[in-house]
């Protein structure tokens, strides 16, 4: 169990982060410079926050009230750096053994061999970092961090420097690590897909603050703010006003849409009449249908972009003249209907997939 509550101020930037995780994988997501690496470094003891506390499995690593700040050497924290930071003058075996050199020879051999096996690095023990591929170097870095059996594993953008194929393999391997590593795992990434794939919990950072912390489903399906929604890849955000509430649904009038949107209310959200809200929906959740209906609105294709995964369309919705509304859809594969610019159709926005910010 890791509890973090820290603050740090630097010229032009201030970090304020608080969260706790218990035997889960937390993905820290956010743009560059938002304080993600600073958080990891604070947990590892490489950076000293101005204020706050960090508790790992009941042990205080940092307590500014008591003036306690343990050095990194004794924190039992495993850290995998963005550039791997392997010791280039030592071979893979010696790199991995670096943190456990005080154990007896047989124990060291046993652990290193086990780790080499787990990370698919059999027979690579004698190789030097300069003789390993990037993916292999990354695996050695992870093995090295795991050798001393740390209580928490921190990974700072571990896969950002790798190409897609290698990245996917390593992401799978990191997921598999959970089978033998029972501690907490925090990893920093700016890649949403990677974060979603590997983690169970997500923390979204921006400008030194955590905008949202929750299970990955929560963050993706119910982002707490426009920024989180954007970082979560949502491109459909509509400004509207609450018209009324009925049957557990809110009716929101959005300028640019013919009729009010019906939005399913979750978790006892409290809305008042005439309250301005932002309604969002993920591109993948919008369906193209044949006719008008509840939450189905007419629109015209404005732009079509085809990529490897499928087709993205941008629609201009036919509205009530009060404003313009544009929605994007993302349809997978060849099953998507092919439409030309200017073509008219209806878009269905399922009430349960809409979220209110």
């Amino acid at each position, binding site marked *: 169990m890791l509890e973090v509550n820290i603050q740090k101020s630097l010229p032009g930037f201030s970090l304020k982060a608080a969260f706790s995780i218990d035997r889960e994988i937390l993905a820290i997501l956010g743009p560059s410079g938002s304080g993600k690496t600073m958080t990891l470094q604070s947990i*590892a*003891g*490489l950076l000293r926050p101005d204020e706050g506390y960090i508790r790992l499995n009941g042990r205080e690593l940092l307590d500014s009230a008591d003036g306690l700040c343990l*050095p*990194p*050497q*004794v*924190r039992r*924290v*495993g*850290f995998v*750096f*963005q*550039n*791997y*930071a*392997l*010791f*280039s*003058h030592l*071979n893979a075996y010696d790199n991995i053994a*670096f*943190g456990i050199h005080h154990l007896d020879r047989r124990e060291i051999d046993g652990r290193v061999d086990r780790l080499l096996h787990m990370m698919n690095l059999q027979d690579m023990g004698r190789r*030097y*970092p*300069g*003789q*390993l*591929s*990037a*993916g*292999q*170097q*990354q695996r050695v870095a992870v093995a*090295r*961090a795991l050798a*001393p059996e740390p209580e928490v594993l921190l990974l700072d953008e571990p896969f950002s*420097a*790798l190409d897609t*194929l*290698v990245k996917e*393999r390593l992401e799978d391997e990191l997921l598999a690590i959970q089978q033998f590593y029972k501690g907490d795992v925090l990893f920093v990434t700016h890649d949403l897909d990677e974060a979603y794939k590997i983690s169970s919990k997500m923390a979204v950072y921006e400008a030194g603050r955590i905008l949202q912390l929750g299970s990955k489903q929560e963050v993706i399906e119910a982002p707490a703010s426009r920024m989180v929604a954007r970082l979560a890849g949502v491109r459909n955000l509509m400004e509207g006003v609450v018209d009324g509430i009925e049957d557990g649904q809110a009716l929101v009038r959005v300028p640019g849409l013919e009729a009010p949107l019906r939005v399913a209310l979750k978790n006892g959200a409290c809305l008042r009449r005439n309250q301005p809200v932002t309604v969002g929906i993920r591109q993948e959740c919008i369906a193209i249908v044949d006719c008008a209906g509840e939450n189905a609105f007419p629109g015209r294709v404005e732009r079509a972009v085809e990529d490897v995964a499928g087709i993205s369309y941008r629609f201009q919705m036919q509205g009530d003249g009060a404003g313009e509304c544009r929605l994007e859809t993302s349809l997978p594969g060849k099953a998507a209907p092919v439409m030309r610019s200017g073509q008219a159709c209806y878009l269905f926005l399922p009430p349960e997939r809409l979220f209110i910010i």
Partner: protein
Amino acid sequence: MATGAAFRDSLATARIKPRGREESTLMSETILSPFWISLKTVLVATTITFFLGIAAARWIVGYQGRLKNIMNGLFILPLVLPPTVVGLGLLMLFGKHGPAGMLLGRLGASVVFSWPATVIAATTISFPLMYMTARGAFEQIETSIENAARTLGASEWRIFWSVTLPLAWPGVLAGTILALARSLGEFGATLMLAGDIPGRTETIPMAIYFAVEAGDMHEALVLALVVLAIAFVSIVVISEVGGAPRGSRYGVRSSKGKAHRTPEVEP
């Protein structure tokens, strides 16, 4: 005033010394003596500079305070100043009325015009070279590497010996060679502090100078060849003993994690 007089005296002593006109052979006193003196001086001076330079470089790389640039300036001062000025400074420090001189005086010792003075002069002059090169080598090492060692439980001492120094070794080696070469060729400061006393403080560079001055070109040439031999052998020995093995396994220190060697194996 007193220093001025002492200095004039030292120069006088330095110049008035026997210079035989007899044939100088390689084995003659006038060759052997400077040879041994230089050898001893260079070995001791380079060893001291090696440790002092590394220590100073390591200290300043870790130092976060405001005096960093000032300390750096002090460390490289002997390189920037003319050797005679450095010699003058040392003379004022170690002379009869200088702070270090008075301290030694109380112990009944005097450094001026003695062999240790050649070591002091050579060390002072070659220190900046060792310091600058070692510092450059240490600063080349990415912080994340030392941080990684910290998270793995290594004490600062272990980090220095097992990570920093091995990674900085090529630079440290180069610095040692520079320091050795500079010590070997030291003349100006040595002359000021140690004087040219044959059999005691006359190093090869001084012997060459005064041989030429006395017109003994033969001796000068022989001495020059001796210096060349010492320098060359030292450089080769240092490079052999300290250099990276053939087919360097050090690989390429990658930035941003990308290995520069194309992998022949599955990623």
